[in-house]
């Protein structure tokens, strides 16, 4: 194949992929004017669902970051028996079908689950609550964050950590003042991935938390619930979801670029260390 023909083939593949991926998104907006988008918020089902989605997703993200960051740091920086097993176990939810995740959550935390009795005696009832939504989101989305955070920490130059130690900083202080800030672009990328996964989460939430308006009916569930009865409303809510996700993606991109700063697009040969620290993580 000549070079021109090969380039044409590559371009055709890209065009096909773009067309296929963009068309459905465009189609959503083709039928939804901006005015309709705004007025869809007057629909109590949509407004409740949007608010619930934002609330649960942000809560789940906070939990993932607070627990996942130190866990990822441990996995990235220490060698211990069972480490490989722990990594695999943490990544398992990535490949689990959401329905399986929902069943698993019920079997663990449901009234007849392993922890059901303990939870019940503590007065906690999870299924069909907002907390259950957060749990479901954490379950399906946290592996995205932990994986990315672990990769970011693993790419951290160990001599930065050592320099911090010789300068009087304890391991904990080094984690907070050097490891996290230097790896922030990678951590932000992980947060973005987890956010995307959590915002779109459907199956596990439906099975574990149900679909109660204002309690556990997130935007994807509301879309599903209304698409048979009120397709235009479902379209409007879908458009809302696209706008929210798109805004987040853009914010992360801009924030990441700003953090890396004017020196972020590093002169590679000039400062291989900073370059490695800042480009190793896909931002």
């Amino acid at each position, binding site marked *: 194949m000549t070079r021109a023909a090969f380039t044409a083939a590559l371009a055709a593949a890209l065009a096909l992929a773009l067309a296929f991926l963009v068309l459905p998104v465009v189609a959503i907006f083709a039928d939804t004017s901006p005015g309709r988008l705004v007025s869809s918020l007057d629909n109590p089902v949509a407004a409740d669902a949007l608010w619930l989605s934002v609330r649960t997703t942000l809560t789940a993200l906070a939990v993932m970051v607070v627990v996942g960051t130190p866990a990822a740091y441990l996995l990235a920086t220490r060698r211990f028996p069972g480490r490989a097993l722990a990594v695999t176990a943490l990544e398992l939810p990535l490949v689990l079908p959401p329905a399986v995740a929902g069943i698993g959550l019920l079997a663990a935390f449901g009234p007849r689950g392993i922890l059901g009795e303990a939870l019940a005696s503590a007065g906690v009832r999870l299924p069909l609550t907002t907390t259950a939504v957060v749990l479901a989101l954490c379950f399906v989305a946290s592996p995205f964050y932990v994986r990315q955070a672990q990769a970011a920490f693993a790419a951290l*130059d160990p*001599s*930065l950590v*050592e*320099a*911090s*130690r*010789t*300068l*009087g*900083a*304890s391991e904990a*202080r080094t984690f907070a*003042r*050097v490891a996290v*800030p*230097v790896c*922030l672009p990678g951590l932000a990328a992980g947060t973005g991935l987890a956010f995307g996964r959590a915002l779109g989460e459907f199956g596990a939430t439906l099975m574990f938390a149900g679909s109660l308006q204002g309690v556990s009916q997130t935007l994807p569930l509301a879309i599903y619930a209304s698409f048979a009865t009120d397709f235009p409303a479902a379209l409007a809510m879908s458009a809302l979801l696209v706008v929210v996700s798109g805004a987040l993606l853009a914010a992360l991109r801009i924030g990441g670029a700003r953090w890396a*700063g004017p*020196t972020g697009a*590093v*002169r590679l040969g*000039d*400062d291989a*260390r*900073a*370059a490695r*620290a*800042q480009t190793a993580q896909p931002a």
Partner: protein
Amino acid sequence: MLELRVRRRLSRLELDLALEVGSGALALAGASGAGKTTTLRIAAGLERPDSGTVRCQGEVWFDSRSGIEVPPERRRVGYVFQDYALFPHLSALGNVAYGLAARPRADRERRARALLERFGIAHLARARPAELSGGERQRVALARALAPEPRALLLDEPLSALDPATRGAAARELRELLETASVPALVVTHDFLEAAALARRVAVIERGRLVQEGAPGELVAAPATAFVADFAGANLLHGRATPPPARGELTRVALDGGGLVASTDEASGRVGVAVFPWDVTVERPDAPAAGSQVNRLTGRVTTLTVLGNRARVSVATPQPVTAEVTTASVERLGLREGAAAAVAWKATATRLVPGA
């Protein structure tokens, strides 16, 4: 005083070392993989020896018998990493202030600024490491290491990340710094001239063991092993250079204590004159100057060290110049300690290096 008496099994060799570093710098020199950096890391607490002790200024940092191990953050050493390991997310000022966390905020900033001032980079206080040149980065790394008033300085190949153009000036500054810092300093280097330029004493390690320790001149004059002989390549004489008066002429160096030598290198002011022993010929003092050796000095043989079929002959000119000759030549010329001799070498074999 920094004292190390440590053993550590490494993948390819066993480190077994006893070192004492007084105030003033000791250069720890050797081939790559000889265990130099490991030694430095053990002193800093970044690596743990299998057995032994590490002590600094009367304080025990490590003792395998009593199970004492002070973590790196409580040793207060100033460690300069080979590629400086500056924090990429902090400005130069932030890097220098990092080790001052225990002090009040105003104090912290004042001291960090004063250090940047001292290293001539105050105008770069807000720059991130990626925006700095190699030489500037080295200064930030030194300032950062000195900021918390360390009890010992540990420097890992502090000049190797610099380009040759800035290395000379950096070496001069660093030597001055190490001489005025009143704490023990251990400088790792794989380059003998660098060791000689930075420290008054050089310890050579070979596959994890200390083989010789002494002033640079002593190592050149009387190397203990063949490795030291090859490694401690150059004589280093001190003097003052006068630049060539015209194009095509030579730089003249008036040696401290007497003697004039010429070099094809250009320099002016205080310089070190480096010449390799194998480039120096030994002659009878009354032999007529023949051949192309421009530099010829006479004196008495102070030491004569035989290493197999070669011998190191050191002649006080009055600065000692060591020549490496065959043992056959030693016999032919009747060389012995106390005998008069002349040493000669070419101006093209005379390297001028920055030196005090």
